[in-house]
């Protein structure tokens, strides 16, 4: 590929070039988009609501019921597509909250340094040692009514520590760079320096962090639903699995009830991890050589 002058390519064109050449990135995006579309348009393909009794229970997949029916005769496909919506909802909301808290704590601690940094990092370390599941259990157990949004908020508020620590070290290293000192001696305010100088440099990193938080929230929601702290109304992939285990789907060999929800979760989160590694390879060439 002959190029007129080596300095002509600006780094954004180079990044775009590698993005679409990176296999992991493409596979990841396809998986994620497939299930997103399934979640958005799926419910229109079936006339049954997730909780309606569509037909005879314990019915394997057939032309009528694409993914068969549950023990009570509810349509598994309809439950799956509605469950996808709530999982994406939790992932979106929980991921956003966790990333936002993590970013602000990380930026503020990283830039201010000194006592502020020490206090924030103490809180982060404490939150990091306490396993998120324990926190979630204690919060969720006492809530009379549990909806997807509250669950997402709980997940978001307990999953931010590792983001805060990672963002802090990034901010700390960027702060040492001279262009921050240059902005300071031009009299630019601290907030503008963080948003105008430091944050743009971390866009790629923030996006990767968001992807991991998104996937993490989905997994956390599934776990919460499974141990009984899921939304009291509506359906979610975790609830499907919990009902399946509760009503002995395994012993009865109802594979069409237990495999689709788990597979959907694994492929969505797996797709997100693929996108994350793809981005990592794009932004740091060392891994790209492998």
């Amino acid at each position, binding site marked *: 590929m002959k190029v007129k002058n080596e*300095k*002509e390519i*600006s*780094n954004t064109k180079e990044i775009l070039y590698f993005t679409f050449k990176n296999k992991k990135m493409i596979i990841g995006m396809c998986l994620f988009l497939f299930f997103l579309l399934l979640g958005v348009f799926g419910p229109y393909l079936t006339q049954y609501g997730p909780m309606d009794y569509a037909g005879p229970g314990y019915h394997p997949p057939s032309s009528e019921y694409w993914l068969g029916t549950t023990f009570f005769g509810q349509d598994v496909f309809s439950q799956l597509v509605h469950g996808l919506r709530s999982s994406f909802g939790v992932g979106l909301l929980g991921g956003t909250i966790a990333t936002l808290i993590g970013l602000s704590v990380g930026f503020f601690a990283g830039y201010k340094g000194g006592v502020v940094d020490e206090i924030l990092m103490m809180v982060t370390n404490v939150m990091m040692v306490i396993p998120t599941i324990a926190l979630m259990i204690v919060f969720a157990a006492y809530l009379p009514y549990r909806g997807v949004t509250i669950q997402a908020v709980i997940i978001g508020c307990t999953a931010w520590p590792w983001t805060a620590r990672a963002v802090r070290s990034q901010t700390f290293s960027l702060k040492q*760079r*001279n*262009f921050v*000192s*240059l*902005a*300071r*001696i*031009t*009299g*630019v305010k601290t907030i503008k320096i963080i948003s105008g*100088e430091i944050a*743009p*440099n971390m866009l790629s990193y923030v996006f990767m962090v968001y992807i991991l938080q998104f996937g993490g929230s989905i997994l956390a929601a599934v776990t919460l639903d499974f141990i009984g702290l899921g939304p009291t109304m509506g359906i979610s992939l975790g609830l499907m699995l919990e009902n399946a285990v509760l009503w002995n789907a395994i012993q009865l060999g109802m594979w069409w009830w237990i495999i689709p929800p788990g597979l959907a979760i694994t492929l969505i989160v797996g797709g997100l991890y693929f996108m994350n590694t793809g981005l990592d390879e794009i932004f740091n060439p060392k891994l790209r050589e492998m």
Partner: protein
Amino acid sequence: MLEATNLTKEFKVGSFGRGVFKAVNKASFKIDNKDIVSLIGESGSGKTTIGRMILKLTQISGGQIKYNGKDVSDIKNKNLKEYYRKVQGVFQDPFSTFNPIFKADRIFKMVKNEFYPALSNKEWEKKLDDSLKSVGLNPKEVLNKYPHQLSGGQLQRFLIARALLIDVELLIADEIISMLDASTRIDVLNLLAMLKEKGLSVLFITHDLSLGYYISNKAIILYRGVIVEMGPTDKVFFNPVHSYTQSLLDSVPRLDMKWDEIPKRKKTYTDIVSYIPGMSKRELKMTEIEENHFVAIE
């Protein structure tokens, strides 16, 4: 113009910060109008810390800085901005001084928003062109380019042009040419020397003695945070008194004489014991051994 008295910078070390490390220890010096003062010291001598303290980028632990008679040791926002109209800085690594994801001339837009918001674009365009030309850059060739599309020399000149835009009185140049190749660094030095004629005074921070000698009319030798010798450049370089200054001058690789051909230095002042920071027990005394040539003595 700028007067620092007993300037000190302490860092807490050890767990729970009980131990104290004095990066700069009671440094006092003056920079007058149209002066180029070279602040010479090896790595770890605290020369960059002094530069950052003057530019208010780090807190001052002790002592005081006066600018045009006004105490600026801990000024804030509005009068800090006024101070930055008078005092500006240029840093060592050009590629870390430009935010890589923006175009290089964004630093000029920042100067316009902060210092000349009211100025019309046309007037600003003209002012920018003049300052770029005065540092030997052709505006059409260098404007709206990414930092990685410009050479180190061009980027350093950008920074000097930026300071000229604010028509600044004192420039703190911290190792500005150590990243440049031999052939391009001389032009940047000559540029600084020429600007001196037009009234700009410079604090030239470097570890390279020949560069310090080349452009400065006053020299300060710094060792482990303490000023050990200070005075007019010719006196300090050709009549060094402090043992550290002498050893520095003897180990500089020269093009005219090999190391072992350098003649032994005869002790000009027999009764003087130079103050070695960290080793000497008693308080240091800056004494004037000849017309404004000071040496730190025990």
